[in-house]
């Protein structure tokens, strides 16, 4: 192994070898949770699963760019790795898959991955695409009004940028220079619709100019590159210099969700081709190349993660479901009928 101090000097600001290994561990944990979700779905134990395979690098990179305990995350439904890298545990993740009463995100009310973890600065979202983007801006506005140091990271797919609300959010944010970062996870598809049918441009980042904010493109299969871009954007926002639109180019390794069948709109060749872009082996090579980890360490991390996911699965499955009375809670602060 090369000596770590020399490596550290070459790492982007804020990243240490330990953090890089933790990042890797989160990507692996996410992959195993993702695989588990689809396995449970096939077994008929859960009705629905959404994958983030192909997005792990951008999400891990972005999550580590946040100042934990301060910055807020307003994610979208594909952000399993962002959530697991921001303090959500495997148990919590499995509880939402099983829609148990104790699911801390929604008490089993929402689809999986619709996080809400205020104590870890993650905001609630619905499934309605792009509706959360203005929320992130509003949160950032609040932090600015209160002179708090928090920055808000708002994520979405490239398809989401077609929605009018997305436009309104970026426009408002740039006028008021609120401390937020817009992160587009561009996987080139909105369910079956390829990017060229969604927009007449190559790069979502090109939309930034229309709001007078910087637009940055990064390789979303590389967590370190994504980290750097998002980190820079976040610190820029924290300094009061306004929002940035970051576009991370990644891909979707599987069908949109367990309800979709990508074979209806993607060629087998394309499906094979994206598999070669898997960010996990790519990051392994990067770490090994720099002497920051070796196969034994990867194996250890993987085994630990597997144990975690197995335990979480058994535990979550055994938890009680909601009851009929739970239907009526949290309608209003004052009760079901106010």
């Amino acid at each position, binding site marked *: 192994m090369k000596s770590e101090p020399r490596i550290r000097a070459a790492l982007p600001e804020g990243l240490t070898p330990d953090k890089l290994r933790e990042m890797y561990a989160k990507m692996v944990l996410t992959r195993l949770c993702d695989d588990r979700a689809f396995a449970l779905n096939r077994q008929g134990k859960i*009705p*629905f699963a959404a994958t983030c395979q192909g997005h792990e690098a951008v999400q891990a990179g972005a999550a580590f760019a946040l100042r934990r305990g301060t910055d807020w995350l307003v994610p979208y439904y594909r952000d399993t790795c962002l959530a697991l890298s921001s303090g959500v545990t495997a148990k919590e993740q499995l509880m939402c898959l099983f*829609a*148990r*009463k104790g699911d801390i995100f*929604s*008490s*089993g*009310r*929402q*689809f999986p991955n*619709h996080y809400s973890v205020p104590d870890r600065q993650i905001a609630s979202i*619905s*499934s*309605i*695409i*792009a509706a959360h983007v203005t929320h992130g801006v509003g949160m950032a506005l609040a932090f600015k009004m209160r002179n708090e140091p928090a920055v808000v990271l708002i994520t979405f797919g490239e*398809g*989401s940028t*077609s*929605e*009018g*609300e997305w436009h309104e959010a970026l426009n408002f944010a740039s006028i008021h220079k609120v401390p937020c970062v817009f992160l587009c996870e561009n996987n080139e598809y*909105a*369910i*079956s*619709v390829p990017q060229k*049918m*969604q*927009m007449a441009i190559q790069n979502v980042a090109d939309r930034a100019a229309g709001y007078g904010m910087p637009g940055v493109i990064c390789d979303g299969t590389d967590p370190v590159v994504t980290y750097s871009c998002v980190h820079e954007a976040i610190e820029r926002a924290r300094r009061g210099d306004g929002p940035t639109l970051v576009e991370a180019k990644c891909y979707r390794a599987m069908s949109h969700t367990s*309800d*979709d069948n990508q074979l*209806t*709109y993607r060629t087998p060749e394309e499906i094979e081709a994206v598999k070669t872009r898997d960010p996990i082996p790519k990051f392994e090579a990067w770490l090994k190349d720099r002497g920051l980890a070796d196969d034994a360490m990867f194996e250890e991390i993987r085994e630990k993660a597997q144990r975690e996911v197995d335990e979480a699965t058994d535990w979550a499955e055994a938890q009680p*479901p*909601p*009851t*009929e009375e*739970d*239907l*009526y809670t949290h*309608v209003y602060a004052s009760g*079901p*009928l106010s």
Partner: protein
Amino acid sequence: MATKTVLEGVRDALYNEMSRDERVFIMGEDVGARGNVFLITQGFMDKFGRQRVIDTPLAEASIVGVAVGAAMAGMRPVAEIQFADFIYPAYNQIVGEAAKIRYRSAGGNTCPMVIRTPYGGGVRGALSHSVSVEALFYHVPGLKIVVPSTPADAQGLLTSAIRDDDPVMCLEHKRTYRLIKGEVPEGDFTVPIGKAAIAREGKDLSVITYGLMRHTATEAAEKLAAEGIEAEIVDLRSIRPMDRETILGSVTKTRRALIVHEDNKFGGVGAEVAAIIAEEALFELDAPIRRVCGPDVPAMGYAKEYEEAFMPSVERIATAMRELAAY
């Protein structure tokens, strides 16, 4: 007569109208190569071409807004909203624009278009794939709203909607798509907008309902028949215009009215049904009007338990029917 599912009824209406009338085209998310998320338009792109089966960007206001413009220019667009929960961003275009174009231009412009969307729960669609939206639109003059519950009505009402000279919303209960099978007339036929159907005749009480609940209520009625109570089931089919005559005719005959819908109770479509009866047939009633509806909570949850507690069940409906008949 052929036996079809509701989904096939919808597909055949679309297919036939596109074949019959060049002005008809479809636009929506994933309607092209994917053939719609429920596979309703599978094969349409190959048959009718990309120009008439348009995969839109993910942006509902423009799906409806562009369709409105095309309708104003003489086309007959069928705009699809992938799930009814995603119709809210298009609200302005539907309520503020489509509904008012004929009126505001004193007939100078018109807006003959269809907005189709799958709605309703019971498929583990969770908070944002289960909503009923009829009550959010039925108050709006200028719109028509149909809610078919059988394959024949799905095909016949959608055909009428496409041929209508005004904007029509076609709300299809997604649970019925593959669950409900039935006989459908061969060849070209329509079901008129604005006419309810007597789904089951009975003399002891009237159940006024629509959508999936037509089937749930019918099941409850069969149960009660074994106990000697004969319920009449009125399937509204059209929410706007609403068939007052059929409602009042049935209620006047049975002297008891139960309204059933899956949507939340307060301010739901059942409110207007109750109001119509209370205005026009109050003294014909031998019992108070009763409503069995979804609870007044913001959404149907993902967990099975939430869904079951939300959806009016055969048992809940049967109990209400029994009580009403015994009143």
